[in-house]
């Protein structure tokens, strides 16, 4: 529901990541990492970004979204596993004391500029 705001932030970060000396830069691809626990719908983000990117150096850029799995680690037995459904106890020892190692990402990894 807040994908428009997120798209605006993405645009802002992409704009500031284009080296200032590259005056005619065309961004071809934006590589995003989005955790599976992040409250983002990739198709909505793509739609909003298209609207925001109009008439910018990244108007034709592909938003490449890498989904990051939710990986947890048990504080008691150190077991690491990938969480698939909404269950957050250790699959080895049943402990509820766990840390989420990945899956909340919402970050821009890189941008690719046309040569």
């Amino acid at each position: 529901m807040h994908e428009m705001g997120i798209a605006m932030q993405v645009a802002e970060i992409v704009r500031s990541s284009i080296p200032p000396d590259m005056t005619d830069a065309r961004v071809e691809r934006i590589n995003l990492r989005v955790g599976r626990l992040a409250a983002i719908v990739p198709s909505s983000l793509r739609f909003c970004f298209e609207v925001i990117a109009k008439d910018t150096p990244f108007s034709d850029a592909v938003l490449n979204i890498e989904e990051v799995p939710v990986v947890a680690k048990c504080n008691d037995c150190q077991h690491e596993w990938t969480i698939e459904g909404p269950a957050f106890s250790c699959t080895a020892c049943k402990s509820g004391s766990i840390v989420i190692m990945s899956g909340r990402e919402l970050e821009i990894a890189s941008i690719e500029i046309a040569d």
Partner: protein
Amino acid sequence: MEIKVVRKVLDANNTMAAQNRKLFAEKKVFVLNMMSSPGSGKTATLERTLSLLMPEVKTAVIVGDICTSNDADRLAKSGAPVIQINTGDLSGGDCHLAAHIIADAASNLDLGNLDLLIVENVGNLVCPAEFDIGENARTVVLSVTEGEDKPLKYPLMFRVCDTAIVNKIDLLPYLDYDIHAAVSNILQVHPQMPIFQLSAKTGHGFDAWLNWLKRQLLI
């Protein structure tokens, strides 16, 4: 040519949230972010919470809604300073309160004269979970007129919160709601989470909730 960026999209919000957190710590104000779906009874829970805390615990409220000042009007009757944020207009608006909105609102409060600031977020179980506002603790409110499986449908919200309130328990005799299933679903998503079953209407169950809240103020 690939240019490494590696920046969090919510960097701007997170930076602002860190500033808020620092300011609240300096002023010794404990900040609680209350979130829920619309209609779970956040405002009613707060009304009773304020009536039991004030004036002993000096409390203020920031309340976020897309439209109207109805909630602020209700909460102001407690005597607590209340700031209403409207995130949009008639056509809808922001689905959450962001850190910069809280910074603006807090600048209108006498923080030095407060123990507790409660933020009643926009009714929504999705977006507010993603936005740090500089709070010290988060509470999610659900009610027995919703599905028992809400925690499973919105796991992020129940993961990021520190406590859960199950409200409207006075209605249990009239509903098919399975409160044991609801509690078990919360614990499946967030094992060991403190859960307060209460009724904002009758006041039943408020002792445990208020004891938890008061303990946080001492930490």
